[in-house]
Structure formats: C-alpha cells, structure tokens
C-alpha cells in the first residue's frame, strides 16, 4: 500500500512525515511528493497545511494540475484523504484569513476566525484540548471520548451540514475539530503531535 503526503510547500511537514513513518514502519510505503501521477495512483493521500488559509491555497494552485488531481482522487476515485489543520480547513468553499479565498469546496461551509470574546480567549488556540466525539468516525477507532489532542490555530471550519462533524472541542464555543464525509477525513488538531493517541489516529487512517 502507498500513502502519499502531499508536499506543496505549505510550511513545515517534517513532523507529519516522521509520524507516518513511525506508524507505517516497513509495512506501508510513505511517499512525500507533489508528483501528480504518484498522488493519483496512491491508495491514500494526506494533505497537511500550515500557515494561513490563503498561503496554503496559493501553494496548492502554484503546482500546475494539483487541485484537479486532488479533486479526481477524492471526488471521482473516492479514495481516502486526510486533511490536517489548514489541510482540513481547505475542504471548505471559502476562507477569510488575510483575505477572502476560495477553498477546495469538498465540504460546504466557511473558515472564519475563532471568536476570542474580546480577549477572553487567547489566540492562537495553542495546546492540548479534549475532543468531544459526536459521531463514529473510522479514524477514531480505539480513541476514547474526551481524549486530549494538540491544537494550534486561530481559524475554525464552520460547515453548513453539521452531519459531517465527527468531533468538536470547547474553546470559546464548540469548535469543529474533526470531520468525516464519505472518503474525506480531516482533523483540526495535529495527530502527528498528539503523542500515542495521535499516532493511533494515523494508524487508523493507514488501515482504512
């Protein structure tokens, strides 16, 4: 089996690579590439993302044909994809970080700034916060409700259809922190930085 981590200059992806390699050991081949042929022919794809919504979307668009390839992989071939952090946020139709930017549109909704309630909540939302699992998700197999995951973000995905939400976390309001829509998976938190429990989520995704 091949799992491809999309390398599209979205910032620091070494931790994502290290965690997938740790889980995969020698059993699964982990590719890190922006090669469109390799992406489309892989069994699973991981879409990381750091920095702003706008910078990540721009970085995707800078690689000719990448968005089309991802669309084919996800929407036509219906193969599993995991978005992490801004990787998940880009599933939305539109994001409002820096300026209004069109997203991938796989999950109808928007990405807007977390309401800090006039400074009551510090942003970025950094650190370990517990997740409230609201829907059975294949990537949560063996994960207990209220487990702590590592977050670092200032923006949140607000999907129109709440049925895609698989977990929320409480910071200012109930922030969407995980989604599952058919073959599309995403986490706002960083499984690659969430210790053993995060590696379990990565293992679940690899074993899908």
């Amino acid at each position: 089996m091949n799992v491809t981590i999309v390398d599209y200059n979205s910032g620091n992806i070494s931790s994502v690579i290290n965690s997938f390699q740790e889980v995969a050991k020698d059993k699964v081949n982990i590719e890190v590439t922006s090669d469109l042929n390799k992406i489309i022919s892989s069994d699973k794809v991981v879409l990381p993302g750091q920095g702003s919504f706008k910078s990540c979307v721009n970085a995707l668009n800078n690689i000719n044909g990448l968005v089309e390839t991802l669309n084919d992989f996800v929407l036509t071939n219906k193969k599993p994809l995991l978005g992490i952090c801004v990787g998940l946020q880009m599933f939305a139709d539109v994001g409002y970080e820096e300026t209004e930017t069109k997203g991938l549109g796989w999950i109808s909704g928007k990405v807007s700034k977390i309401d800090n309630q006039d400074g009551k909540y510090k942003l970025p939302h950094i650190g370990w916060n517990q997740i409230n699992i609201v829907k059975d998700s294949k990537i949560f197999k063996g994960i207990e409700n209220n487990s702590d995951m590592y977050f670092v973000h200032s923006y949140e995905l607000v999907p129109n259809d709440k049925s895609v939400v698989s977990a929320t976390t409480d910071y200012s309001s109930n922030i969407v922190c995980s989604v599952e829509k058919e073959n599309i998976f995403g986490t706002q938190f960083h499984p690659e930085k969430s210790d053993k429990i995060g590696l379990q989520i990565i293992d679940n995704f690899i074993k899908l």
Partner: protein
Amino acid sequence: MLKNRIIPCLDVKNGRVVKGINFVDLKDAGDPVEQAKIYSDGGADEICFLDITASNENRDTIYDVVDKTSKKCFVPLTVGGGIRSVEDINKLLNCGADKVSINTAAVKNAKVVEDSSRKFGSQCIVVAIDAKRNNAGWEIFTHGGRNSTGINALEFASKMEKCGAGELLVTSMDKDGTQSGYDIELMQKISSAVNIPVIASGGVGTLDHLVDGIKSGASAVLAASIFHYGTYSINEAKQYLASKDIPVRI
C-alpha cells in the same frame, strides 16, 4: 477545556545536555534525544531545547539533535538559541522542530519575526523575552542575558504580538536559577498586555511555583532544573496541578 502545558527545557551545548537527569536506567545521560524521549514518555506537553553552543563551528550539532528527536518524540518540539535569520528557522523546521524561539534576533531586527511568521505561520514563532526589573518596570536583555537594551519589556511584548509572534516565552532574569518562583508580577503584566499565549519561565523550585505561574495568567509553564535533577517527575507535577484544580493533560 484547554489544558495548561508543562514544558521541560533541556540546555544543549555542542549537541550534549548540559544538566542531566539522574536516572539510573539512562544509558547516556548527556544524550538530548534520550532525555527528550524520557520527558515525552513521562507526559511532557512539549519539549524545549535551548542551544547554548557558543562557537559557530559546533552550531550544526543542534540540527542533528532536532532531527533525531523529532523521529522519536511525537509532541511539539521548540528549539531556541542562536537563531539569527529566516534561513536558520527554515533549517530547524526542516529538521523537525515544530516551533523556534527567537531572542536576540527579534530585538535587533523585528522584521525576522514578521518575515518568518508570514512565511511559516505564527504558530511556529515564539519570541523569547529575557526581562530584568529596573526602576521603570522591566527591561529586556539579549545575548543570553548579557546585553542590556533599554527596551521596556511590556512594550516589546506588544510589539512582538503585532509582528506576528504566536507565543511569548517570558523569562525573569532576576528569578532564573534562584528556585524561588517565577516573577509573578511580570507574568501577570505581560499576560494581560497581549492576546497571545505566554509561557512563564525562570525560577521554578517547587510544584507550587508551577501553580503560581499558571494562576498569573500564563498558558504554559517551563522548567528546567526541577525536572533535570529528578526532584519531580513530569507526572508528579501534573498530578499536583490537577489537585489544585488546574486543568492539565494526564
């Protein structure tokens, strides 16, 4: 609910830990990778390396340490010390650091903070503020506390927030090494002056000091000696904080 973080810090010089943990089963007490792994297995919420390598020719040793650690520890890793430029930051992130902490370079040239936060995201840019009390409040120092600047710490903290820092690591130079507790007033003032998380540092000697640090408004507490010398384990610290109704990850 967001948990308060406990961050053990390891001082690394020429690729070796300067102050070691006294664990009997430790094969190599000077190996930062092995020590970081002990901390992360023990429940550390993040790991911090402070590179205090003085000579330039040995500076590359930290990259190897970061690379090896990031393949073994799956909690966030912050690296500070000797970072001069956006290129230095890029190199550390590529080796597997999740965040970098910038001190002297941020004071000398705020553009390093602006440029790097724009390029890599605010989430990985920590500005380290070394502050010392004076008649007017607190003054910041650079070069590991050797050089005075005349810059007011509170004003500098706000400036760094505007430049794109994602977190502030605030060390009281008056308290550092004294084991008499954080400079609580400093932590309170800076925490309320900015809307980004503050990590309290400098002066921890007891578990109550960690409690006081969190109560001052800091989002995270950093400590070195109490963990290095095995006075307390990370888990003991967390249990103690939990017993004082402070939310921690256990």
